[in-house]
């Protein structure tokens, strides 16, 4: 059992390191494309690629890698998914409850006078009518 856990753990690390390498290759391609688009195929563009690559891929990779991953996921629509997950899903309850409304949508539960639904002097949905003190 312990060996199985160790193997799974090592595989996870292997996947993460491979994924990091793939990310670095894609970021390097993006830098190459950016420099070529702006400067063309010139020695200056190669110099810019070298400087950018040194800073982005080697010096500040944890920061730029995280930012790039976040940017990619947000560009793919992760923000909408998170909004739906945390806000739209909280509005659960579109389906009427069978116990409260019955098969024909008519309330047949215990009726409390004054609580909505037109009790004596009550306004539907506004609670019991006000009574003078004493």
């Amino acid at each position, binding site marked *: 059992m312990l060996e199985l856990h160790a193997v799974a753990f090592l595989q996870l690390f292997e996947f993460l390191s491979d*994924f990091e390498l793939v990310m670095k*290759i*894609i970021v390097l*391609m993006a830098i190459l*494309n950016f420099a070529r688009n702006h400067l063309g195929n010139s020695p200056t563009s190669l110099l810019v690629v070298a400087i950018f690559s040194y800073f982005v891929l080697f010096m500040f990779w944890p920061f730029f890698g995280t930012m790039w991953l976040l940017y990619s996921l947000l560009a793919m*629509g992760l923000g909408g998914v998170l909004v739906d*997950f945390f806000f*739209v899903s*909280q509005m659960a309850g579109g*389906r009427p409850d069978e116990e409260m409304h019955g098969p024909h949508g008519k309330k047949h539960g215990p009726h409390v006078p004054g609580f909505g639904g037109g009790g004596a002097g009550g306004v539907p949905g506004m609670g019991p009518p006000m009574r003078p003190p004493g």
Partner: protein
Amino acid sequence: MVVILLLVVLIVALAPAVIMVLFEPAGILIRIIMAFLVFSTVRQYLGNSGLALIVSAILIYFIVIKWAPVAASIYVVVFLLMAVNFFSVLFWGIATNMPKKH
């Protein structure tokens, strides 16, 4: 509620990997599609050059051969389902079909 949604997302995310393992033709098809996707993406960045072939080969080894089920799941969820806002429809459908809170 949140647990149900997480379970549904997990099932949807794992489905491509499970299908790839269970049905070999589906696995081959997804691998071919991913290889084309990788090669066309690299060609967009680097143009028609030898470097594009080398980079494509490296990426295809990692994405299509070594970690194919994981990459297929990521590809289907991120590039196909999230691109057409499938999860919005899924969450809305599940949330509106749940019984009312008291």
